């Protein structure tokens, strides 16, 4: 199935090109700016989560990496070549969100169909096994559950033994068990050193399966780091107090305040060190009615990626 891959160890391009390189790409749909000046480099063997709410620009970006659409501005390089060429050479493949299957073929027929399109014969049985669907090979695709269909898409993506595998919201609509099975198949495969980029709006998926999390909001990358780093950005506590006459500037100067918001006489301060801010508020200012609440991880993520997220008023 692959002549040289096993001997190469960690996959590197001989010219050292990264798996994905986006340079200043933007994508406009009419007046809607779906992707805004995104720079992103993904190295070989990385497992990267592309995290953001629906409509953040994840799919638009992925479509450009796959050559399904062209950027309005900027440049896309995949494994050092154009996206279309990388597809033609079977070096990148993808599991798309929905559709893309013929209901009147069986599971194994679908895999054979796609396998025959690659120059080198791909190992259909191995791909079905790795996706965990060898047992339903003769089932009609139209009779498969959503999770089984998704694992078939995954098997199809494995057929060319790609260097880069892209998954767009791979577990949307799956039940808990389906999600767990799907990810254990992906995880088993990731040990082979493949570069994986997956889009998701589930924080826990990004947390559990990615080495690196790229947070996208309104077409822009707002955070990029390990999941621990991104979580710490989004964690901390919110202090709420009554403080007439406060300005965002004066509040922003409080030691430990990460972000602030003024709503009439009420002030909201977000901080990674709530005690310090509370001490300051109660001793150095006229603040009263102080409340301190901690944010759940999910809420923190929402705050980071929502329209009124951190950074406002600073």
């Amino acid at each position: 199935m692959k002549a040289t891959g096993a001997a190469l160890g960690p996959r590197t391009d001989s010219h050292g090109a990264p798996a994905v390189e986006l340079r200043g790409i933007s994508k406009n749909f009419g007046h809607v700016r779906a992707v805004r000046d995104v720079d992103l480099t993904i190295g070989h063997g990385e497992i990267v989560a592309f995290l953001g709410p629906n409509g953040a620009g994840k799919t638009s970006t992925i479509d450009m990496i796959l050559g399904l659409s062209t950027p309005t501005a900027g440049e896309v390089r995949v494994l050092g070549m154009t996206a279309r060429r990388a597809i033609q050479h079977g070096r990148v493949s993808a599991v798309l969100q929905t559709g893309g299957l013929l209901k009147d073929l069986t599971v194994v027929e679908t895999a054979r169909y796609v396998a025959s399109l690659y120059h080198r014969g791909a190992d259909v049985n191995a791909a079905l096994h790795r996706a965990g669907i060898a047992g339903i090979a003769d089932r009609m695709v139209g009779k498969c559950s959503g999770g089984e269909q998704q694992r078939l898409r995954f098997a199809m993506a494995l057929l060319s033994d790609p260097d880069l595998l892209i998954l767009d919201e791979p577990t949307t609509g799956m039940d808990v068990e389906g999600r767990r099975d799907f990810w254990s198949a992906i995880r088993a495969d990731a040990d082979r050193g493949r570069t994986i980029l997956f889009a998701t709006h589930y924080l826990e998926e990004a947390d559990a399966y990615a080495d690196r999390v790229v947070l996208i909001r309104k077409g822009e990358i707002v955070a990029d780091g390990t999941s621990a780093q991104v979580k710490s950005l989004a964690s901390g506590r919110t202090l709420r107090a009554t403080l007439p006459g406060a300005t965002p500037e004066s509040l922003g100067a409080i030691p430990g305040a990460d972000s602030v918001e003024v709503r009439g006489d009420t002030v909201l301060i977000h901080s990674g060190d709530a005690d310090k801010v509370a001490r300051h508020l109660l001793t150095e200012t006229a603040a009263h009615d102080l409340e301190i609440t901690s944010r759940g991880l999910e809420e923190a993520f929402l705050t980071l990626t929502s329209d009124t997220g951190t950074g406002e008023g600073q």
Partner: protein
Amino acid sequence: MTTATASGQGARSGPPLGGFSPTVLGLEIRRLLRNRRTVIFTMVTPSIFFLLFGLNASYATTTPAHWHGNISAFILISMALYGSVLANTSGGAMISIERSQGWSRQLRLTPLSPVAYIVTKMMTSMVLGLVSVVVVNIVGLLSQKPSMPWYLWVATAASVWVGSLLFAAFGLFMGYLLPTENVMQIMGFVIMLLAFGGGLFVPLSVYPHALQTLARFTPLYGLNQLVHAPLTGQGVEGWWVLNVVVWLMIFIAGAVWRFRRDTARV
């Protein structure tokens, strides 16, 4: 290609023939035969039409002057053409359905070139067209009514089959034009109208004069005349050939236009 031929990974080349593969062709034919509606449309309907319209006792005994066979044989050829045209149109209809199911998009993530995809679809529907022609001719043989020399059975069946390629182009055009899953019903209706216009169901001489003139411009007219010419012994008229060529160019131009739009990367 500028990168990495030394690593082995980079040495992978694009597929020959744009990814065309016999495996895909075999699977496509299997899919088509699984589809009962297609089988009924392209094999059962024309056979039944022949049994309804072609078995009149006087048709079997009448051999008009200069003809090399009887009227029953004439109707047999018409029905074989009808079935084969429907079969060839269905290839395009499949593309329409696959576009709506997202399969075309999925294939764009493989090395398969859009042209190889279309060639595969056309070959698939040609196989279906062949089966349709053979079935209608077997029904004709079993009925024992049509009469013509054996070489005319072969020659008319072959010209019906090859001539129907005109409608493979029509099917592709419609397949890319119509975005619906019930495209086959629409096309079935359109082909029915064209079959009346081309004189497949009733001779054009029964129409009023104005309608006869109009019919000479419809896309099945020229082809229908051509495939019957060996039987009726008529000389081929230039108008028939012109009709076929012009419509072929229109359908191909339309298909290419829609296809380019479909594969344009936005």
